[in-house]
Protein backbone atom coordinates (compact mmCIF):
# COMPACT_ATOMS: atom_id res chain seq x y z
CA UNK A 1 0.00 0.00 0.00
CA UNK A 2 1.37 3.42 -0.93
CA UNK A 3 1.34 5.85 1.95
CA UNK A 4 2.43 8.88 0.00
CA UNK A 5 -1.04 10.43 -0.35
CA UNK A 6 -1.49 10.24 3.43
CA UNK A 7 1.70 12.08 4.11
CA UNK A 8 0.81 14.86 1.70
CA UNK A 9 -2.77 15.20 2.91
CA UNK A 10 -1.81 14.97 6.57
CA UNK A 11 0.33 18.07 6.46
CA UNK A 12 -2.54 19.90 4.82
CA UNK A 13 -5.10 18.75 7.38
CA UNK A 14 -2.91 20.02 10.20
CA UNK A 15 -4.06 23.58 9.46
CA UNK A 16 -7.80 23.02 9.65
CA UNK A 17 -8.89 26.57 8.88
CA UNK A 18 -6.79 26.93 5.76
CA UNK A 19 -7.87 23.52 4.52
CA UNK A 20 -11.61 23.98 5.02
CA UNK A 21 -11.45 27.47 3.53
CA UNK A 22 -9.60 26.22 0.46
CA UNK A 23 -12.03 23.31 0.18
CA UNK A 24 -15.01 25.65 0.30
CA UNK A 25 -13.44 28.00 -2.23
CA UNK A 26 -12.60 25.24 -4.70
CA UNK A 27 -16.03 23.64 -4.30
CA UNK A 28 -17.95 26.87 -5.07
CA UNK A 29 -18.55 26.07 -8.72
CA UNK A 30 -18.85 22.30 -8.31
CA UNK A 31 -21.14 22.22 -5.24
CA UNK A 32 -20.16 18.69 -4.27
CA UNK A 33 -20.40 19.24 -0.52
CA UNK A 34 -23.58 19.86 1.47
CA UNK A 35 -21.64 20.35 4.70
CA UNK A 36 -17.96 20.99 5.40
CA UNK A 37 -16.54 20.63 8.88
CA UNK A 38 -14.64 23.90 9.21
CA UNK A 39 -12.98 22.96 12.48
CA UNK A 40 -12.21 19.39 11.40
CA UNK A 41 -13.40 18.45 14.89
CA UNK A 42 -13.47 14.80 13.84
CA UNK A 43 -9.72 14.96 13.22
CA UNK A 44 -9.09 15.12 16.97
CA UNK A 45 -10.42 11.77 18.00
CA UNK A 46 -8.93 9.62 15.25
CA UNK A 47 -5.94 7.38 15.21
CA UNK A 48 -2.66 9.12 14.51
CA UNK A 49 -0.85 6.04 13.36
CA UNK A 50 -3.37 3.97 11.40
CA UNK A 51 -2.83 3.07 7.75
CA UNK A 52 -5.15 5.92 6.75
CA UNK A 53 -3.82 8.44 9.30
CA UNK A 54 -4.53 11.99 8.25
CA UNK A 55 -6.45 11.07 5.14
CA UNK A 56 -9.47 13.32 4.56
CA UNK A 57 -12.55 11.51 3.26
CA UNK A 58 -15.86 12.81 1.95
CA UNK A 59 -19.00 10.93 2.96
CA UNK A 60 -22.23 10.81 0.97
CA UNK A 61 -25.00 12.44 2.95
CA UNK A 62 -27.05 9.27 3.35
CA UNK A 63 -24.28 7.72 5.50
CA UNK A 64 -24.19 8.57 9.20
CA UNK A 65 -21.23 10.45 10.66
CA UNK A 66 -21.61 11.49 14.28
CA UNK A 67 -22.14 15.23 14.67
CA UNK A 68 -22.70 15.81 10.96
CA UNK A 69 -26.03 16.40 9.30
CA UNK A 70 -27.73 13.45 7.60
CA UNK A 71 -30.15 15.04 5.12
CA UNK A 72 -30.14 12.43 2.34
CA UNK A 73 -30.62 15.45 0.06
CA UNK A 74 -34.18 15.69 1.32
CA UNK A 75 -36.22 18.54 2.77
CA UNK A 76 -37.80 16.09 5.18
CA UNK A 77 -34.44 15.55 6.97
CA UNK A 78 -33.19 19.13 6.61
CA UNK A 79 -32.40 19.50 10.31
CA UNK A 80 -31.40 15.93 11.12
CA UNK A 81 -27.99 15.47 12.76
CA UNK A 82 -26.60 11.98 13.24
CA UNK A 83 -25.83 10.88 16.81
CA UNK A 84 -23.68 7.95 15.66
CA UNK A 85 -21.21 6.72 13.03
CA UNK A 86 -22.00 4.21 10.30
CA UNK A 87 -19.84 1.10 10.71
CA UNK A 88 -17.89 1.85 7.50
CA UNK A 89 -17.14 5.37 8.74
CA UNK A 90 -16.19 4.13 12.22
CA UNK A 91 -13.79 1.54 10.78
CA UNK A 92 -12.12 4.01 8.40
CA UNK A 93 -11.86 6.60 11.19
CA UNK A 94 -10.31 4.03 13.53
CA UNK A 95 -7.63 3.58 10.85
CA UNK A 96 -7.00 7.32 10.87
CA UNK A 97 -9.25 8.66 8.10
CA UNK A 98 -10.87 12.03 8.80
CA UNK A 99 -14.41 12.71 7.55
CA UNK A 100 -14.27 16.34 6.39
CA UNK A 101 -17.78 16.73 5.08
CA UNK A 102 -21.00 15.34 3.63
CA UNK A 103 -21.55 15.18 -0.12
CA UNK A 104 -24.55 15.88 -2.29
CA UNK A 105 -26.78 13.15 -3.73
CA UNK A 106 -30.10 12.56 -5.42
CA UNK A 107 -32.74 12.54 -2.68
CA UNK A 108 -32.41 9.26 -0.73
CA UNK A 109 -30.15 7.97 -3.51
CA UNK A 110 -32.93 8.05 -6.11
CA UNK A 111 -31.56 9.39 -9.39
CA UNK A 112 -28.74 9.46 -11.91
CA UNK A 113 -27.83 13.15 -11.92
CA UNK A 114 -27.63 14.62 -8.39
CA UNK A 115 -30.11 17.16 -9.77
CA UNK A 116 -32.86 15.70 -7.54
CA UNK A 117 -31.47 17.15 -4.32
CA UNK A 118 -32.85 19.67 -1.86
CA UNK A 119 -29.23 20.83 -1.62
CA UNK A 120 -29.11 22.01 -5.25
CA UNK A 121 -27.31 20.46 -8.22
CA UNK A 122 -23.71 19.25 -8.29
CA UNK A 123 -21.74 20.21 -11.40
CA UNK A 124 -19.33 17.96 -13.25
CA UNK A 125 -15.72 19.15 -12.80
CA UNK A 126 -15.06 18.30 -16.49
CA UNK A 127 -17.86 20.59 -17.68
CA UNK A 128 -19.86 22.56 -15.14
CA UNK A 129 -22.93 22.64 -17.42
CA UNK A 130 -23.16 18.86 -17.11
CA UNK A 131 -24.28 16.63 -14.27
CA UNK A 132 -21.85 14.74 -12.05
CA UNK A 133 -24.04 11.65 -12.31
CA UNK A 134 -25.85 10.08 -9.43
CA UNK A 135 -26.78 9.35 -6.96
CA UNK A 136 -23.29 9.65 -5.39
CA UNK A 137 -22.60 12.67 -7.64
CA UNK A 138 -21.17 14.79 -4.82
CA UNK A 139 -18.67 12.12 -3.82
CA UNK A 140 -17.53 11.55 -7.43
CA UNK A 141 -17.23 15.29 -8.15
CA UNK A 142 -15.33 15.91 -4.89
CA UNK A 143 -12.73 13.32 -5.87
CA UNK A 144 -12.52 14.49 -9.50
CA UNK A 145 -12.09 18.12 -8.41
CA UNK A 146 -9.16 17.04 -6.23
CA UNK A 147 -10.90 18.07 -3.00
CA UNK A 148 -10.38 14.73 -1.26
CA UNK A 149 -8.44 11.59 -2.24
CA UNK A 150 -11.24 9.18 -1.27
CA UNK A 151 -14.99 9.35 -0.90
CA UNK A 152 -17.72 7.04 0.33
CA UNK A 153 -20.88 6.54 -1.67
CA UNK A 154 -23.71 4.04 -1.80
CA UNK A 155 -24.70 1.88 -4.76
CA UNK A 156 -28.25 0.57 -5.07
CA UNK A 157 -28.43 0.34 -8.87
CA UNK A 158 -25.23 2.01 -10.06
CA UNK A 159 -25.02 5.04 -7.78
CA UNK A 160 -21.28 4.72 -7.18
CA UNK A 161 -20.23 3.48 -10.63
CA UNK A 162 -22.22 5.82 -12.88
CA UNK A 163 -21.05 9.09 -11.24
CA UNK A 164 -17.52 7.65 -11.09
CA UNK A 165 -17.74 7.09 -14.87
CA UNK A 166 -19.15 10.59 -15.49
CA UNK A 167 -16.37 12.20 -13.43
CA UNK A 168 -13.49 9.98 -14.62
CA UNK A 169 -12.59 8.27 -11.33
CA UNK A 170 -12.62 4.67 -10.08
CA UNK A 171 -15.85 3.60 -8.37
CA UNK A 172 -16.09 0.27 -6.55
CA UNK A 173 -19.42 -1.34 -5.74
CA UNK A 174 -18.38 -4.25 -3.51
CA UNK A 175 -20.09 -7.61 -3.05
CA UNK A 176 -23.42 -7.15 -1.28
CA UNK A 177 -22.95 -7.45 2.49
CA UNK A 178 -19.16 -7.17 2.48
CA UNK A 179 -19.46 -3.58 3.72
CA UNK A 180 -21.93 -3.16 6.58
CA UNK A 181 -25.09 -1.20 5.89
CA UNK A 182 -25.36 -0.06 9.52
CA UNK A 183 -25.64 3.72 9.36
CA UNK A 184 -26.67 3.82 5.69
CA UNK A 185 -30.14 5.31 5.32
CA UNK A 186 -32.05 2.46 3.71
CA UNK A 187 -33.55 2.83 0.23
CA UNK A 188 -33.61 -0.73 -1.18
CA UNK A 189 -32.08 -2.98 1.46
CA UNK A 190 -31.59 -6.14 -0.60
CA UNK A 191 -29.67 -4.27 -3.32
CA UNK A 192 -27.55 -1.58 -1.75
CA UNK A 193 -24.02 -1.47 -0.41
CA UNK A 194 -21.52 1.24 0.49
CA UNK A 195 -18.90 1.94 -2.16
CA UNK A 196 -15.59 3.73 -2.63
CA UNK A 197 -14.50 6.41 -5.11
CA UNK A 198 -10.93 7.53 -5.77
CA UNK A 199 -8.24 8.14 -8.40
CA UNK A 200 -6.01 5.82 -6.39
CA UNK A 201 -6.58 2.06 -6.62
CA UNK A 202 -4.31 1.47 -3.61
CA UNK A 203 -6.49 3.69 -1.48
CA UNK A 204 -9.65 1.86 -2.56
CA UNK A 205 -7.98 -1.45 -1.77
CA UNK A 206 -6.78 -0.26 1.65
CA UNK A 207 -10.12 1.28 2.59
CA UNK A 208 -12.07 -1.77 1.41
CA UNK A 209 -9.93 -4.14 3.47
CA UNK A 210 -10.29 -1.96 6.55
CA UNK A 211 -14.04 -1.44 6.23
CA UNK A 212 -15.09 -4.90 5.01
CA UNK A 213 -16.33 -7.74 7.13
CA UNK A 214 -19.11 -8.95 9.33
CA UNK A 215 -20.80 -6.46 11.64
CA UNK A 216 -23.11 -7.40 14.52
CA UNK A 217 -25.18 -4.29 13.73
CA UNK A 218 -26.09 -5.54 10.24
CA UNK A 219 -27.37 -9.06 9.98
CA UNK A 220 -26.92 -9.07 6.19
CA UNK A 221 -23.20 -8.32 6.52
CA UNK A 222 -20.78 -11.08 5.57
CA UNK A 223 -17.13 -11.79 6.21
CA UNK A 224 -14.84 -11.77 3.18
CA UNK A 225 -13.29 -15.23 2.71
CA UNK A 226 -9.61 -14.87 3.65
CA UNK A 227 -8.41 -16.49 0.42
CA UNK A 228 -10.00 -13.70 -1.58
CA UNK A 229 -7.59 -11.15 -0.12
CA UNK A 230 -4.53 -12.98 -1.43
CA UNK A 231 -2.90 -11.79 -4.65
CA UNK A 232 -5.28 -13.01 -7.34
CA UNK A 233 -4.50 -15.33 -10.20
CA UNK A 234 -4.00 -13.53 -13.49
CA UNK A 235 -7.15 -12.76 -15.46
CA UNK A 236 -7.15 -15.08 -18.49
CA UNK A 237 -10.62 -14.97 -20.01
CA UNK A 238 -12.84 -11.93 -20.16
CA UNK A 239 -16.36 -11.67 -21.60
CA UNK A 240 -17.37 -8.43 -23.26
CA UNK A 241 -21.09 -7.78 -23.34
CA UNK A 242 -22.20 -7.69 -26.96
CA UNK A 243 -25.43 -7.14 -28.85
CA UNK A 244 -27.34 -3.90 -29.40
CA UNK A 245 -26.00 -1.80 -26.52
CA UNK A 246 -27.34 1.62 -27.58
CA UNK A 247 -24.15 3.55 -26.76
CA UNK A 248 -23.35 7.12 -27.71
CA UNK A 249 -20.33 7.66 -29.99
CA UNK A 250 -17.84 8.39 -27.20
CA UNK A 251 -18.87 5.40 -25.11
CA UNK A 252 -18.86 3.09 -28.13
CA UNK A 253 -15.34 4.24 -29.07
CA UNK A 254 -14.06 3.84 -25.50
CA UNK A 255 -15.63 0.39 -25.26
CA UNK A 256 -13.94 -0.74 -28.50
CA UNK A 257 -10.62 0.70 -27.35
CA UNK A 258 -10.96 -1.05 -24.00
CA UNK A 259 -11.52 -4.35 -25.71
CA UNK A 260 -8.37 -3.88 -27.77
CA UNK A 261 -6.43 -2.92 -24.66
CA UNK A 262 -7.60 -6.04 -22.82
CA UNK A 263 -6.72 -8.22 -25.82
CA UNK A 264 -3.27 -6.62 -25.97
CA UNK A 265 -2.64 -7.90 -22.43
CA UNK A 266 -2.76 -11.47 -23.72
CA UNK A 267 -6.23 -12.04 -22.28
CA UNK A 268 -8.70 -14.18 -24.24
CA UNK A 269 -11.75 -12.08 -25.07
CA UNK A 270 -15.15 -13.40 -26.11
CA UNK A 271 -18.36 -11.55 -26.78
CA UNK A 272 -21.46 -12.66 -24.87
CA UNK A 273 -25.11 -11.68 -24.92
CA UNK A 274 -27.47 -12.03 -21.98
CA UNK A 275 -30.88 -13.64 -22.42
CA UNK A 276 -32.11 -11.73 -19.39
CA UNK A 277 -30.82 -8.35 -20.64
CA UNK A 278 -34.23 -6.83 -21.41
CA UNK A 279 -35.63 -7.77 -18.01
CA UNK A 280 -32.88 -6.40 -15.78
CA UNK A 281 -34.10 -2.80 -15.46
CA UNK A 282 -37.83 -3.47 -14.99
CA UNK A 283 -37.04 -6.15 -12.39
CA UNK A 284 -34.64 -3.77 -10.67
CA UNK A 285 -37.12 -0.88 -10.49
CA UNK A 286 -39.91 -3.16 -9.31
CA UNK A 287 -37.82 -4.49 -6.43
CA UNK A 288 -36.14 -1.17 -5.60
CA UNK A 289 -39.39 0.80 -5.46
CA UNK A 290 -41.18 -1.93 -3.48
CA UNK A 291 -38.41 -1.90 -0.88
CA UNK A 292 -38.30 1.91 -0.93
CA UNK A 293 -42.02 2.19 -0.17
CA UNK A 294 -41.46 0.14 2.99
CA UNK A 295 -38.12 1.70 4.01
CA UNK A 296 -39.30 5.29 3.61
CA UNK A 297 -42.38 4.72 5.78
CA UNK A 298 -40.27 5.84 8.76
CA UNK A 299 -40.10 9.42 7.44
CA UNK A 300 -43.47 10.47 8.73
CA UNK A 301 -42.83 13.57 10.86
CA UNK A 302 -43.09 11.48 14.02
CA UNK A 303 -40.36 8.85 13.95
CA UNK A 304 -38.13 10.87 11.62
CA UNK A 305 -38.46 14.07 9.70
CA UNK A 306 -39.75 17.61 9.74
CA UNK A 307 -43.39 17.91 10.66
CA UNK A 308 -46.01 20.55 9.95
CA UNK A 309 -46.71 23.19 12.59
CA UNK A 310 -50.32 22.11 12.90
CA UNK A 311 -52.38 19.02 12.13
CA UNK A 312 -55.86 17.92 13.22
CA UNK A 313 -54.81 14.34 13.92
CA UNK A 314 -51.78 12.03 13.62
CA UNK A 315 -52.75 10.72 10.18
CA UNK A 316 -53.10 14.20 8.76
CA UNK A 317 -49.71 15.05 10.29
CA UNK A 318 -48.09 12.09 8.53
CA UNK A 319 -49.69 12.83 5.15
CA UNK A 320 -48.78 16.45 5.32
CA UNK A 321 -45.20 15.84 6.54
CA UNK A 322 -44.58 13.39 3.68
CA UNK A 323 -46.38 15.53 1.10
CA UNK A 324 -44.29 18.57 1.97
CA UNK A 325 -41.01 16.79 2.73
CA UNK A 326 -40.43 14.47 -0.25
CA UNK A 327 -39.40 15.58 -3.74
CA UNK A 328 -41.19 14.39 -6.87
CA UNK A 329 -38.82 11.51 -7.77
CA UNK A 330 -39.13 10.07 -4.26
CA UNK A 331 -42.91 10.37 -4.41
CA UNK A 332 -42.94 8.61 -7.76
CA UNK A 333 -40.92 5.68 -6.45
CA UNK A 334 -42.95 5.38 -3.23
CA UNK A 335 -46.18 5.34 -5.25
CA UNK A 336 -44.82 2.75 -7.68
CA UNK A 337 -43.54 0.58 -4.84
CA UNK A 338 -46.81 0.83 -2.97
CA UNK A 339 -48.68 -0.09 -6.14
CA UNK A 340 -46.62 -3.17 -7.03
CA UNK A 341 -47.06 -4.45 -3.47
CA UNK A 342 -50.86 -3.93 -3.40
CA UNK A 343 -52.84 -7.09 -2.94
CA UNK A 344 -53.76 -8.49 -6.33
CA UNK A 345 -50.65 -7.09 -8.04
CA UNK A 346 -47.88 -8.77 -6.04
CA UNK A 347 -47.59 -11.88 -8.21
CA UNK A 348 -47.67 -9.83 -11.42
CA UNK A 349 -44.91 -7.44 -10.41
CA UNK A 350 -42.94 -8.04 -7.21
CA UNK A 351 -42.90 -11.85 -7.20
CA UNK A 352 -42.19 -11.96 -10.90
CA UNK A 353 -39.31 -9.50 -10.54
CA UNK A 354 -37.79 -11.65 -7.80
CA UNK A 355 -37.99 -14.72 -10.05
CA UNK A 356 -36.32 -12.75 -12.85
CA UNK A 357 -33.67 -11.83 -10.30
CA UNK A 358 -33.04 -15.56 -9.86
CA UNK A 359 -32.76 -15.99 -13.64
CA UNK A 360 -30.20 -13.16 -13.83
CA UNK A 361 -28.15 -14.68 -10.99
CA UNK A 362 -28.16 -18.06 -12.70
CA UNK A 363 -27.17 -16.64 -16.07
CA UNK A 364 -24.28 -14.58 -14.65
CA UNK A 365 -23.19 -17.48 -12.42
CA UNK A 366 -22.94 -19.67 -15.48
CA UNK A 367 -20.78 -17.13 -17.30
CA UNK A 368 -18.33 -17.05 -14.39
CA UNK A 369 -17.74 -20.77 -14.84
CA UNK A 370 -15.99 -19.82 -18.09
CA UNK A 371 -14.87 -16.23 -17.62
CA UNK A 372 -12.85 -14.50 -14.90
CA UNK A 373 -14.56 -11.16 -15.51
CA UNK A 374 -17.38 -9.63 -17.52
CA UNK A 375 -16.74 -6.20 -18.99
CA UNK A 376 -19.48 -3.85 -20.04
CA UNK A 377 -20.08 -0.11 -20.31
CA UNK A 378 -20.97 1.65 -17.07
CA UNK A 379 -23.59 3.89 -18.71
CA UNK A 380 -24.69 4.27 -22.36
CA UNK A 381 -23.68 7.94 -22.53
CA UNK A 382 -21.13 10.41 -21.21
CA UNK A 383 -22.26 12.93 -18.59
CA UNK A 384 -25.39 14.68 -19.84
CA UNK A 385 -26.41 18.33 -19.37
CA UNK A 386 -28.47 19.57 -16.47
CA UNK A 387 -32.20 19.79 -17.12
CA UNK A 388 -32.91 16.47 -18.89
CA UNK A 389 -31.89 17.85 -22.29
CA UNK A 390 -30.52 14.53 -23.61
CA UNK A 391 -32.23 11.97 -21.37
CA UNK A 392 -35.52 12.52 -19.57
CA UNK A 393 -36.21 10.96 -16.17
CA UNK A 394 -37.63 7.78 -17.71
CA UNK A 395 -34.74 7.36 -20.18
CA UNK A 396 -32.27 7.83 -17.33
CA UNK A 397 -33.85 4.84 -15.59
CA UNK A 398 -33.74 2.65 -18.70
CA UNK A 399 -30.07 3.63 -19.04
CA UNK A 400 -29.31 1.82 -15.76
CA UNK A 401 -29.24 -1.40 -17.81
CA UNK A 402 -25.51 -2.00 -17.33
CA UNK A 403 -25.24 -1.24 -13.63
CA UNK A 404 -28.34 -2.77 -12.04
CA UNK A 405 -27.45 -6.40 -12.78
CA UNK A 406 -24.55 -6.33 -10.30
CA UNK A 407 -26.96 -5.20 -7.59
CA UNK A 408 -29.59 -7.80 -8.45
CA UNK A 409 -26.93 -10.54 -8.38
CA UNK A 410 -25.03 -9.09 -5.36
CA UNK A 411 -21.79 -9.03 -7.38
CA UNK A 412 -18.83 -6.65 -7.11
CA UNK A 413 -18.20 -4.27 -10.01
CA UNK A 414 -15.65 -1.54 -10.62
CA UNK A 415 -16.10 1.39 -12.97
CA UNK A 416 -12.73 2.03 -14.59
CA UNK A 417 -11.80 5.37 -16.21
CA UNK A 418 -11.44 4.44 -19.90
CA UNK A 419 -10.20 7.59 -21.54
CA UNK A 420 -11.35 11.10 -22.40
CA UNK A 421 -13.50 11.62 -25.50
CA UNK A 422 -14.37 15.14 -26.66
CA UNK A 423 -13.28 16.44 -23.29
CA UNK A 424 -15.42 14.07 -21.22
CA UNK A 425 -14.51 10.88 -19.39
CA UNK A 426 -16.01 7.47 -20.19
CA UNK A 427 -16.18 4.63 -17.67
CA UNK A 428 -16.13 0.91 -18.45
CA UNK A 429 -17.13 -1.64 -15.82
CA UNK A 430 -15.47 -4.86 -14.81
CA UNK A 431 -17.89 -7.14 -12.97
CA UNK A 432 -16.69 -10.28 -11.18
CA UNK A 433 -18.04 -13.14 -9.10
CA UNK A 434 -18.80 -12.58 -5.40
CA UNK A 435 -15.78 -11.43 -3.35
CA UNK A 436 -13.57 -10.87 -6.42
CA UNK A 437 -12.79 -7.24 -5.43
CA UNK A 438 -9.05 -7.92 -5.40
CA UNK A 439 -9.23 -9.39 -8.91
CA UNK A 440 -11.11 -6.30 -10.15
CA UNK A 441 -8.64 -3.88 -8.55
CA UNK A 442 -5.56 -5.74 -9.78
CA UNK A 443 -6.96 -5.91 -13.29
CA UNK A 444 -7.69 -2.17 -13.20
CA UNK A 445 -4.11 -1.57 -12.06
CA UNK A 446 -2.84 -3.54 -15.04
CA UNK A 447 -4.96 -1.48 -17.45
CA UNK A 448 -3.91 1.78 -15.80
CA UNK A 449 -0.34 1.20 -16.95
CA UNK A 450 -1.51 1.91 -20.50
CA UNK A 451 -4.58 3.98 -19.73
CA UNK A 452 -4.11 5.99 -16.53
CA UNK A 453 -7.02 8.11 -15.26
CA UNK A 454 -6.89 11.81 -16.09
CA UNK A 455 -7.82 14.85 -14.03
CA UNK A 456 -10.16 17.58 -15.36
CA UNK A 457 -8.15 20.50 -16.80
CA UNK A 458 -9.68 23.06 -14.45
CA UNK A 459 -8.81 20.92 -11.43
CA UNK A 460 -5.53 19.40 -12.54
CA UNK A 461 -3.78 19.71 -9.18
CA UNK A 462 -5.17 17.96 -6.10
CA UNK A 463 -5.99 20.41 -3.31
CA UNK A 464 -3.33 18.91 -1.03
CA UNK A 465 -0.57 19.61 -3.55
CA UNK A 466 -1.82 23.12 -4.17
CA UNK A 467 -1.87 23.90 -0.44
CA UNK A 468 1.46 22.22 0.20
CA UNK A 469 3.04 24.24 -2.62
CA UNK A 470 1.50 27.46 -1.31
CA UNK A 471 2.78 26.93 2.22
CA UNK A 472 6.15 25.85 0.86
CA UNK A 473 6.31 29.10 -1.09
CA UNK A 474 5.60 31.17 1.99
CA UNK A 475 8.18 29.60 4.25
Amino acid at each position, binding site marked *: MSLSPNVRWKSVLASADAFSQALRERDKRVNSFLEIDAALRSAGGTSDSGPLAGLPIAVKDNIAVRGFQLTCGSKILSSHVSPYDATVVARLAAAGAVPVGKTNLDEFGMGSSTDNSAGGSTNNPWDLDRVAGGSSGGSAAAVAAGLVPLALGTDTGGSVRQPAAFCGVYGLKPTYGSLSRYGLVAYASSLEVAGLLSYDIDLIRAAYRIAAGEDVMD*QTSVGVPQGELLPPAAVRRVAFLGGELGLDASTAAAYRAMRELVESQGVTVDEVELETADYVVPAYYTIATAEASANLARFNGIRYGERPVFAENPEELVRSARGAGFGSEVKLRILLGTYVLRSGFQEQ*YYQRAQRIRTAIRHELGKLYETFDLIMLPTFPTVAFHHGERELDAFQQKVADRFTTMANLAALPALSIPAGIYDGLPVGIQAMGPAFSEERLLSFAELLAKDLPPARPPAYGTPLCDELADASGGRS
Partner: protein
Amino acid sequence: MDRSELDITAELALMDLTDDERGQLETAVAQLLEYFSVMDGIDVSGLAPTTRALQEGNRLRSDVLRTDGEAAQALADDILEQAPDLEDRFIAIPNVL
Protein backbone atom coordinates in the same frame (compact mmCIF):
# COMPACT_ATOMS: atom_id res chain seq x y z
CA MET B 1 -53.25 3.62 -14.00
CA ASP B 2 -56.08 6.14 -13.76
CA ARG B 3 -56.52 9.02 -11.35
CA SER B 4 -58.59 7.05 -8.83
CA GLU B 5 -56.00 4.24 -8.69
CA LEU B 6 -53.33 6.86 -8.09
CA ASP B 7 -55.35 8.39 -5.28
CA ILE B 8 -55.90 5.00 -3.63
CA THR B 9 -52.16 4.29 -3.85
CA ALA B 10 -51.27 7.71 -2.40
CA GLU B 11 -53.77 7.03 0.37
CA LEU B 12 -52.02 3.73 1.17
CA ALA B 13 -48.63 5.48 1.11
CA LEU B 14 -49.97 8.16 3.52
CA MET B 15 -48.77 10.97 1.28
CA ASP B 16 -50.51 14.22 0.35
CA LEU B 17 -50.26 15.16 -3.33
CA THR B 18 -51.09 18.54 -4.86
CA ASP B 19 -53.22 18.64 -8.02
CA ASP B 20 -50.14 19.47 -10.09
CA GLU B 21 -48.28 16.51 -8.64
CA ARG B 22 -51.23 14.20 -9.27
CA GLY B 23 -51.15 15.12 -12.95
CA GLN B 24 -47.40 14.58 -13.33
CA LEU B 25 -47.23 11.44 -11.24
CA GLU B 26 -50.19 9.84 -13.00
CA THR B 27 -48.28 10.02 -16.29
CA ALA B 28 -44.94 8.97 -14.81
CA VAL B 29 -46.35 6.02 -12.85
CA ALA B 30 -48.32 4.80 -15.87
CA GLN B 31 -45.21 5.00 -18.07
CA LEU B 32 -43.19 2.88 -15.65
CA LEU B 33 -45.97 0.34 -15.08
CA GLU B 34 -46.21 -0.13 -18.81
CA TYR B 35 -42.45 -0.62 -18.89
CA PHE B 36 -42.75 -3.19 -16.09
CA SER B 37 -45.09 -5.22 -18.28
CA VAL B 38 -41.98 -6.14 -20.33
CA MET B 39 -41.41 -8.66 -17.54
CA ASP B 40 -44.30 -10.75 -18.91
CA GLY B 41 -42.03 -11.72 -21.81
CA ILE B 42 -39.83 -14.14 -19.87
CA ASP B 43 -40.77 -17.59 -18.63
CA VAL B 44 -40.03 -17.73 -14.91
CA SER B 45 -41.92 -20.91 -14.09
CA GLY B 46 -39.88 -23.17 -11.87
CA LEU B 47 -37.66 -20.34 -10.62
CA ALA B 48 -37.79 -19.55 -6.91
CA PRO B 49 -37.90 -15.84 -6.04
CA THR B 50 -34.63 -14.29 -4.81
CA THR B 51 -35.30 -12.30 -1.65
CA ARG B 52 -31.70 -12.17 -0.45
CA ALA B 53 -28.71 -12.51 -2.68
CA LEU B 54 -25.99 -14.35 -0.79
CA GLN B 55 -27.20 -15.25 2.65
CA GLU B 56 -29.28 -18.27 3.62
CA GLY B 57 -31.86 -17.66 6.33
CA ASN B 58 -31.89 -15.29 9.25
CA ARG B 59 -28.92 -14.76 11.48
CA LEU B 60 -29.69 -14.20 15.12
CA ARG B 61 -27.71 -12.74 18.00
CA SER B 62 -28.29 -12.97 21.73
CA ASP B 63 -30.52 -10.37 23.28
CA VAL B 64 -27.98 -9.03 25.74
CA LEU B 65 -27.22 -5.61 27.15
CA ARG B 66 -24.51 -3.72 25.28
CA THR B 67 -21.30 -3.78 27.25
CA ASP B 68 -20.12 -0.37 26.08
CA GLY B 69 -22.21 1.32 28.80
CA GLU B 70 -20.64 4.74 28.49
CA ALA B 71 -20.90 4.88 24.71
CA ALA B 72 -24.55 3.81 24.89
CA GLN B 73 -25.22 6.55 27.45
CA ALA B 74 -23.46 9.11 25.26
CA LEU B 75 -25.57 7.99 22.30
CA ALA B 76 -28.76 8.40 24.34
CA ASP B 77 -27.61 11.87 25.40
CA ASP B 78 -26.88 12.87 21.80
CA ILE B 79 -30.30 11.70 20.70
CA LEU B 80 -32.05 13.54 23.54
CA GLU B 81 -30.11 16.69 22.68
CA GLN B 82 -31.79 16.69 19.27
CA ALA B 83 -35.34 16.42 20.58
CA PRO B 84 -37.29 19.63 20.03
CA ASP B 85 -38.61 19.53 23.60
CA LEU B 86 -37.66 17.58 26.73
CA GLU B 87 -39.10 16.94 30.16
CA ASP B 88 -36.25 15.47 32.22
CA ARG B 89 -35.02 12.58 30.06
CA PHE B 90 -38.36 12.18 28.25
CA ILE B 91 -39.06 13.56 24.76
CA ALA B 92 -42.08 15.86 24.91
CA ILE B 93 -44.30 15.60 21.82
CA PRO B 94 -47.30 17.64 20.69
CA ASN B 95 -50.64 16.60 22.11
CA VAL B 96 -52.27 14.25 19.62
CA LEU B 97 -55.57 13.50 21.37
